[in-house]
Every structure is written in C-alpha cells, then in structure tokens.
C-alpha cells in the first residue's frame, strides 16, 4: 500500500466557511406512485421509507437499477412531491426546492453558453445576489474544486470530470447544508472516479454539509459513507442500513483493506437477493436437480475464497435510463 498524494485540487483555498453546518434530515413514511400518462398503469415507486440522517453524516443510497433511488433523492430535494409521508430538513418540512439543498446530477447539466464561472454564479443570480458577492463566492468555489484557471472556459472545452467539478461548485453556491448527489461520477472512468471520491470527502471535510448520494458501486458507497442504505427493487423500501465504521479521514488505500471488503460483502449480501440477476440465478438453481446446490445455506460472496474475483458485478457503473 502506497501513500496517496493529496489531490492538489483540494489544496487551493481555505474553506469558504467553517464546518459543522450540516442539516439533519428526517424522512417518515415516504411513499410515491407514478401515474402512467393517459391512463397508463400506475407504478408504486417508493414504499414507507423512514430514514433519519444526522448533521454532517454521509449516507449512500444503493439499490438495483430503476429501484427509485434517484426518485427518492428528488423527493429529498423537493423536486418531486411524495404522496405519503413527509421530508423535513432541520425540522422544517420540504415541499418545494429548498435553498438549504444543493443538488448534483448524474450529468453536469451546465449551461453551454456560459463559462465555468458564470455557471457557478447561476444559482446566485437566481437568488438575486449582488455582482460583487457573486464574484467573490464564485472565485472561492472554483478554488475549492481546483478550477481557478478554467474560470473562463466554456463547458464544451472541458473534460467530463472537470465539468462535473463545475457542477459540484454550482451545487455548493448558496452554501447548502445538505448536498445531494445522484450518481455524480458514474460517467467517469474508474481511476478518475476514485480520485473524485477522495476529493468529495475533502470537500465534505471543508464544507461540513450533510451528504446523501446515490450510487451503483458498493465499494464507492462503503468508501464514502458513514451509512449505506440498501433499497429494494420497486417499490423501494429500506432493506438494510449498514453502518460503516471506517475512521476518517479516509484514504484510497482503505479501499484495499479487508475491513472494507467485508463491509462491501455485507452490503452485497443484502443486495444480491434483490436484483433481477439474483432472481434469475435463483430460478436457475431451482432448475438444477436437488442435492447439487446447498439452497439452505445463505449465499454470501464473503464466503467464497479470499481473492476470488466476483463473477459479475451487477452494480458496475452504467447509465440508468
């Protein structure tokens, strides 16, 4: 294991504000049904979700494709109204997009006609900040994500990862106390992704927001989060809430530790029986003559020999429709 160099990006400026301002969140009895257009069939997406998240906690939501993780995140962000239950941030109920929340989407969603700096200023403009205040805050944020020298570049000239940094800076523009990330790094290659995860943790240390992120990757969830919340297939409900007792600050080398592997295995154990693939495998097992497979034994990847690579990873990064 080698020491991981501090990414210079994060060394740029001192924190824009002190840590410790994260919001506490409470989801109680969240349910949501999508009604099909033109009388199509209704789909139950979320079912009785109760979740409490403490200030400054980092929580990863993980679950099979299309289970409603992103939907849950949108409910948290106030973009979608749940038809049952309530979301409250620091005790106040969320009914519409909330100024205390910053949202990072799967794609950077930058405005192509604006420079990186102007994109970061976008939320401040909407909020009616003075120009001087906008400029100062944008400079701080671009420093925070290590993009000072790209301030005047258009998104079209930036790489995918750099664009996503701009989008993170934009999400932090109004000093949110809750940062929501919807598979923010899923479009990046594996190495860049690891580096971005590390940067995200440094950012979290500096800004002190509460973070809820949706991810497909079990190691990513374990590496980033204090708690990994495992969701079931539709309608999503909480299957498990796995506490990650890994000390902070975390390092990329932690990813290789046995502790992380066993935690990841624990998360996977909750997940594996819920995926389409797992169901298909289960059906295949039933089709095999009795006696050949010990069906009564709990199936856990952790019980395979150490060092054996997983045959497949249903949570490999991919784009969710």
């Amino acid at each position, binding site marked *: 294991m080698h020491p991981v160099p501090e990414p210079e990006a994060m060394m740029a400026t001192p924190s824009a504000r002190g840590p410790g301002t994260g919001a506490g969140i409470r989801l109680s009895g969240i349910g949501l049904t999508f009604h099909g257009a033109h009388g199509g069939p209704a789909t139950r997406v979320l079912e009785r979700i109760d979740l409490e998240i403490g200030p400054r906690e980092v929580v990863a939501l993980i679950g099979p494709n299309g289970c409603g993780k992103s939907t849950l995140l949108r409910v948290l962000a106030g973009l979608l109204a749940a038809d049952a239950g309530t979301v409250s941030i620091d005790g106040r109920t969320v009914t*519409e997009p909330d100024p205390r929340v910053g*949202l990072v*989407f799967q794609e950077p969603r930058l405005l192509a*006609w604006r420079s990186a700096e102007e994109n970061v200023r*976008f939320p401040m403009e*909407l909020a009616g900040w003075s120009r001087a205040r906008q400029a100062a805050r944008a400079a701080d944020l671009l420093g925070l994500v290590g993009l000072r020298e790209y301030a005047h570049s*258009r998104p079209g000239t930036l790489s995918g990862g750099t664009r996503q940094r701009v989008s993170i800076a934009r999400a932090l523009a109004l000093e949110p106390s809750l940062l929501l990330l919807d598979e923010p790094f899923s479009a990046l290659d594996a190495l860049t992704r690891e580096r971005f995860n590390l940067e995200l943790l440094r950012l979290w240390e500096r800004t002190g927001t509460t973070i809820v992120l949706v991810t497909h990757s079990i190691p990513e969830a374990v590496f980033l989060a204090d708690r990994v919340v495992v969701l079931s297939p539709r309608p999503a409900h909480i299957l498990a809430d796995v506490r990650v007792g890994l000390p902070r600050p975390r390092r990329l080398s932690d990813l290789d530790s046995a502790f992380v592997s066993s935690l990841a295995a624990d998360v996977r154990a909750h997940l594996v029986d819920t995926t389409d693939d797992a169901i298909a495998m289960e059906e295949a097992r039933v089709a095999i003559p009795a006696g050949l497979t010990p069906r009564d034994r709990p199936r856990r990847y952790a019980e395979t020999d150490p060092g054996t690579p997983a045959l497949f990873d249903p949570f490999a990064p991919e784009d969710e429709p």
Partner: protein
Amino acid sequence: MTAARHPRRRRLLGTLAPVVASLAAFVVAWQLVVFVSGFPPYILPGPMSVAEAFVRAWTDGTMWPHVAATLVEVLLGFALGASVAIVAGIALARSPLAERLLSPYLVAAQATPVLALAPLIALWFGTGLPSKLVITTLIVFFPVAVATMVGIRSVDPRLLEMARSFRASSWQTVLRVEVPAAGPVILGAMRVGVTLAVIGAIVGEWAGADRGLGVLINEARGSLFDIPLMFAALLQLAIIGVVLYLVMLFIERRIVGAR
C-alpha cells in the same frame, strides 16, 4: 508585408478570393449574353451600363432617398416583427392552450400570400411607413415565432430541472435558460427573417408609396423608362439584402460561435 506572413489576412483572402472570382465570372457571363444575344438595352442592359446608371443614381442624388426609405422600413419592420415573434414564440411554447388558440390564425396568415394582403393593408394603414411595417412584421413573424417555439420546446428538460432545483422562477427560466438555449435556432430564423423583411418592404411599396427602392423600380420601368436604372435599383436591393444577411450571420457567430 505579404499576405502569407499574416495568417489572419491570408484567411480573409482565402474567403474573399472565390467570392470575387465568382462575381467576376458572373459579370463576364452577363456581358457575354448581352453580346451574343444582341438584346437591346431596354430588355437586358450590359453590366457596364448598369454600373454607370448605378454610379449616376448615387451621384445625382436619385438613389439615396429611396434607399433610406427602404432601409428604415426593413430595419424597423424586422425589429418589430422579430420582437413580437420571439415574445409570441415563448408564449406558444409555454402554453399549449395559447398554441391551440392561436396556431390556426398563424398558419392562415402565413398561408395567405402577403402580396395578396398588401392592397388591403395599404387601404387600412395608408401609404406611409405604418403599412410597410405591418407587412414586414407579418412576413418576418411566422418563421421567427415558429423557430422560437420549437427551439424552446426542445430545450433539454434536464436543464430545466436543474434550474428548478435552484428555485428559478418561470421568468428566470425563460430568460436565463430557455431563450439562450434556443438562441441558435432563433438567430438562424432571424437570419432568414431579415431577407424576408426586404421582400416585405418592397411589397409594401408596390401597394402604395412615394419613396423606396420598390417605387424607384416601378418608376424606372414606367414613367422614366430607364431600364439600366431599374437594374441599378435591383442591384442596390440585392446589396442591402446580402449586407443585412451578413450582419445577422456575424451577430449569430458572435453569440453562438463560442459554444
């Protein structure tokens, strides 16, 4: 100071050379047709006599008042038509009800040739500037309004969700996301619209006016019977159209090019 040593100048030369060559070829061909066919000057004057008439019309003060009148009609009418069209396009894009209520009239207005409407408009609005502005606005309106509507409708919904997550009001969404995102489409339609505005102005002048290039063309053909002058007026009209088009193109490039 050769062109080769200045990349900018060389590029300009590279753009201009073919244009100049094609113009020269056109003039030569024109002269050749006149020479071979033996058409009399009152049917097809040669390029030299048209050039002469052009210079004469500018030096003796015949041309300018007409050019000025037409330019005012074109520019004002275009500005009016495009502004109304952008506002209408935004309304149409945002309100399906507005689209359902208004689109029959829009299409009917577009389907009725403006040439046929011109006498009526001249009757209602007189032979002054207002009737030309109405006709020009009418002709510019449709393409720009439709492009604005289509452009705004096709803005990536993910950008709109992003704006909503930052609590953008619907007014902020229009001005800061939808219109800029639809900008290239709207500007492209405006580029077409500015050449249509020239047509609108001339049609308006034919329906009744005492000044303008349309009037000059009519007079040169009728009372003056100076066909080279008529060709000179046509040439002037073409120059106005091309210059306005290039100006719009330049503006478009400046705004959109950097994306």
